Structures are given as structure tokens and as C-alpha cells.
């Protein structure tokens, strides 16, 4: 099981703006095993989506991969050409998009849009592709009678299912879910998550789940990586991280969730603002907001991810080294 499907090594993705260079992702390393799911959490603007877009090479024009390596299934894909890339996308890695409401073209039928994905990658006739769409509709528990409908005739949950069907269209090895359940109500959210979980197990796919909702990660992911200001600050087995979290940021993040069994009260918030990635703080990036700061070392030396416990639970914090 320990075959690495995707390995990201010291990935640095920068954006050029008129002022200079914004270091959106600054030295992120992680891996995804075959059949495993990993969750990326963190607040807005911490580089979750940028990491995912770097993996699929879908960065906007201003963004570029400065250094680092992305190895997929033993192949270095960091410098793939356009043609190989378009083959790589969807056949190897596909994406469930943020906001499925808008990821479907309003003037084209749902089935045609999925057929499009199949035809672009596989040498099959339109009829065969249509059969495949029908299977996919059954797989994601959509009524096949609705295949020829337009997106506006679908509800939000149905559209999300259609997007999932599209992501599965070419049997990818890895699926990236970029906040797949935002903009859905809680009931539908739960249904969609169940569906994703079932499908992942049935089809033996790996998944990267991007969200800022820790509860989604604990429900669907084997491992978790907490990101802050373009870096991973804590990574490990989901249960391990949630129960024995060490990094002060992870701790704050978990405390920021209201406990439904307790009295209703204001949840903890993290004081201060996330740092400006154009000019990130020296040393530990969380130091200015940290409540457990131990002194000058936090402000001057950047902590590295180290597995202190020997249980593949990596933490980047000076405090952990001292204790």
C-alpha cells in the first residue's frame, strides 16, 4: 500500500504581480499513496488551491512553479509539454471543481459535456461515450432519464453529482476535490461526501481533498496536511493529528470549531491576520500570531517539518523540538 502515486517535493509556486513576487506556495512537500486520500486544510489564501493547481498545471498566467518537483506514478511531470499535459489531465488526475453551479456550461446538455471529456481523451465513438455517461450517471446515483437535461434543470446537489461523474469519466488515478461541497446545504453535503467516499473505495482512487472544513477531512481523509501561509505546518494520520495535534495553529484551528455537545458560546478565534505573502515574516510564519511563542528563535529561524514521534506525524515548530 505504500506505493507513492503522487509525490510533491519542495514545491514553490510564485505569482508575479506589479509589486513583485508573491510566494503563494513556498516549499511544500507531501505525497499521496495509491488508494489513499489526503486532506489539505487551512484558512483562505494559505495556498491550498494553488498547490492543487500546480499539480494539475492549471495555474493562471501570472503563476509559475519556481522550483520543486512533482512526481506522478514515477514520472516527473514538472516540465511536461502542453500536449502531454492535456493527456495527463483527466486521464491521470481529474478535478472536482469548486462551485459546481458554474462548472457546467449553461447552454450545453449535461451528457454532452461529460461526453466531451471522454472524447477528448479516448478514442471511442460518440455512442460508446454516451453509454459510458449512462453508466457514470448510475454510478453517481443520478436518474438516467435526466441525461439530456440542461444544467439549469438540475438542483445544486445534482449538478455536483454530474461534476463528480465528469471527474470519473476517464478512470483517473487521482482526484482532486477543490472544496467540492461548498455552496451546498448540510444534508446534500453529507450525501455528496458519502458518495465520494464510496466511489473512492469502489474504484481504488487516490484523492486530495481541499477544504477549510476540518469535519469534512476527518470524515473522508486518511491523512491530513495543515497549511499556513504557503507552508505545511503539520502533517500526519488524520486521527493522530486531530487527537494529538501539536502545532499551535492546528490547535487553534480545531478549537475554532464549535462543540455541539457543549453550551453555546463564542468559539475561539485566532488573533491577528494571516501574513502578507509578498513579504512573509522571517522565521516561523505563524510566530506573530502564536500564543505559545518561546522566544527569539521563532522570529529568526524557520522551523522545518520533522517527524518527532516516529509515527509519521510531522510538525514544523520549535516548541516541539524543545519538549
Amino acid at each position, binding site marked *: 500500500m505504500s506505493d507513492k502515486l503522487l509525490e510533491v517535493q519542495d514545491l514553490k509556486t510564485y505569482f508575479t504581480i506589479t509589486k513583485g513576487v508573491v510566494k503563494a506556495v513556498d516549499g511544500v512537500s507531501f505525497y499521496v499513496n495509491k488508494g489513499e486520500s489526503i486532506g489539505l486544510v487551512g484558512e483562505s489564501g494559505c495556498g491550498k488551491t494553488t498547490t492543487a493547481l500546480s499539480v*494539475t498545471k*492549471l495555474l493562471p498566467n501570472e503563476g509559475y512553479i519556481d522550483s520543486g518537483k512533482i512526481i506522478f506514478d514515477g514520472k516527473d511531470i514538472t516540465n511536461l509539454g502542453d500536449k502531454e*499535459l*492535456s*493527456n495527463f*489531465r*483527466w486521464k491521470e488526475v*481529474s*478535478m472536482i*471543481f*469548486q*462551485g459546481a453551479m*458554474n*462548472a*457546467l*456550461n*449553461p*447552454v*450545453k446538455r449535461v451528457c454532452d*459535456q461529460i461526453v*466531451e*471529456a471522454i472524447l*477528448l*481523451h479516448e478514442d471511442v465513438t460518440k*455512442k460508446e461515450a*454516451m*453509454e459510458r455517461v*449512462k453508466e457514470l450517471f448510475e454510478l453517481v446515483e443520478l436518474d*438516467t*432519464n435526466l*441525461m*439530456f437535461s440542461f444544467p439549469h434543470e438540475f438542483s445544486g446537489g445534482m449538478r455536483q453529482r454530474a461534476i463528480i461523474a*465528469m471527474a470519473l469519466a476517464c478512470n483517473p488515478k487521482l482526484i482532486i476535490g477543490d472544496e467540492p461541497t461548498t455552496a451546498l446545504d448540510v444534508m446534500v453535503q453529507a450525501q455528496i461526501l458519502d458518495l465520494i467516499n464510496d466511489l473512492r473505495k469502489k474504484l481504488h482512487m487516490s484523492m486530495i481533498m481541499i477544504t477549510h472544513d476540518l469535519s469534512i477531512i476527518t470524515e473522508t481523509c486518511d491523512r491530513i496536511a495543515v497549511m499556513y501561509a504557503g507552508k505545511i505546518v503539520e502533517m500526519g494520520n488524520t486521527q493522530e493529528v486531530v487527537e494529538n495535534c501539536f502545532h499551535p495553529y492546528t490547535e487553534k484551528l480545531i478549537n475554532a470549531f464549535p462543540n455541539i455537545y457543549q453550551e453555546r458560546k463564542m468559539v475561539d478565534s485566532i488573533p491577528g491576520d494571516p501574513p502578507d505573502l509578498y513579504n512573509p515574516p522571517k522565521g516561523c510564519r505563524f510566530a506573530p500570531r502564536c500564543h505559545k511563542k518561546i522566544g527569539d528563535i521563532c522570529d529568526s529561524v524557520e522551523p522545518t517539518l520533522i517527524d518527532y514521534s516516529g509515527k509519521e506525524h510531522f510538525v514544523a515548530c520549535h516548541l516541539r523540538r524543545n519538549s
Partner: protein
Amino acid sequence: MEMTDNLKKLKDREKELKRQKLKNNLKLFFSNKRAVFGVVILAFFIFMAVIGPLLYDYDHFLYFLGPRVGFPTEEYKLGFDELGRDVLGAVIYGTRASLAIGIFVTLIIVFVGATFGIAAGYFGGLFDIVIMRITEAFSIIPTIPLILTLSAIIGQNFSNIILILGLTGWPSTARLVRSQTLSIKQRNYVERAKAIGAGDIYIMMKHILPNVFPLIFSNIILLVQNAIITESTLAFLGVGDPTIPTWGQLLRSAREQGAISTGSWWLFIPAGICLVLLASSFVFIGYGFDEINNPKLRRR
């Protein structure tokens, strides 16, 4: 095999629904008085252009059938022009010229304008800047003098006039299409199309064009009408193919002969009314489409 049958059934049902929808839309369109008025007038002119020449014999080069600017007679119901030609024949045959101008000029404008507009909006950068500066240049230069100059250079036969009208008309459409493209290319489904490995041309053809098409379509009605009127204006000013009868030519000879002061109504009234009716029929049809596409205008 069973599944294929199933799929076929689904498709049939879909076709049935589509037919139903078309039926509803047609019903909506024809329940609109203005739209029906427009369609009836347009149908009349199309009939006149297609069938008219078969029923009515006319030769543009048959001079002096009657006196110069002669009064209507039993045989020639709309009298004669300054060269003694049959005016009724010229009016009927002129329909052909007007409709042909309307159709072909619009085709050129839509094709060139949509291509440049989508490409400029989608690619952006230097290409966008160049195209936009060209369209700005076109919109600064007054149209009629520009067309007059161009036709003096290229020569004034019928196809040249179509070409000139088409090539001077595309910039406004290109700007319109570009602005819509700028908005559509930022939508999530375009990003999704990129993610599933679609190329630029594919995205422009399959995702952006269908979304800007409603805009192009509503623009077409204005373009046709505009092309017809501009062509008549040119003919009125003396730019046009003298070998092909047009309404504009009739109006010009009316002016040259001082038809209004001499009361030779047959020279300008029939051609003028035809021009106004044909141009307004497109506007009325436009209203009809507007009411189908814009539910707020719909009366229930």
C-alpha cells in the same frame, strides 16, 4: 443491447421534448402582434424577390418603353423613369438586391466580427490591443465617406459593394462579441474545459461561441436592417452597380429629376415605402424574439 435500446428511448423522449419546446416558442412568437406583422411583411418581400421575377417580366436594359418620367399607364402601372424604363419592374427586382445585400453583408460581418471578437477577447494581450485599435479607428472615421472612398478605389460592382459594407461593418460586432467573451472566459466552465484537456480553438468554438451566440443573433436583426439602408443610401448618392436595379437608384433618379416638385410620385413613393417596410419588418421581428428571450416582457 438492452442498454442501447434504452439510450435510444431516452433520445426519442428528448427529441419529443425539443419539438414541444419549439412548438411553444413558435406559439409565443406568433401570439405577438408585432412579430406577426414583421413576419408577414418580410414574407411578402421574400415572395416578391423569389417569385416576382417569374411572374413579372422586366429588363433593366430595355430603355424608352415610354416617355421620360412618363405617367403610369394601363400596362406599366408605376410609370417610367428618366430613361423610360418600367418602374414597377425596378421595384420588384430591387427587392432581390436589398435582400441579397442584407443577407450577405450580415454574413460577412457576423463571421469576421465574431471571429475577431472571440479571438481578441479570449487571447487578450497584443492581439487584443491591435484588433481593438483597428475597431476604434473604424468607429472614428465617418462611415459614408469611408465607403465612398473605398468603392472609388475598388470599383462599384455589386459584389464589391457587399464586400465593402461587410468589411467596414464588422468592428462594432467584434467589440460587442469581445466584451461578452471577456466575461465568459472567466467562468468556471471554461476553466473546467481547460482542465479536461480542451485546446483553445475547441474552447472558443464549443464553449464560448454558443454563449455569445444569443448576443450575435439579436445583433443580426439590426445588422440586416442597417445593411439594407446603407446600401440604399449609397445608391442614392450614386455609388452602386448601375446594371442592377435597386430601390436606392430609383430614389436617386427621383431626386435628379426633381420628382417631388414635379409630383412624379411613382419614382419615389413605391421604392421609399418598400424600403421603410422591409427595414421595419426586421425591427418588428426583433421585438418578437426579444419577448421570447426576455420573460420580463412576456404577457401571460
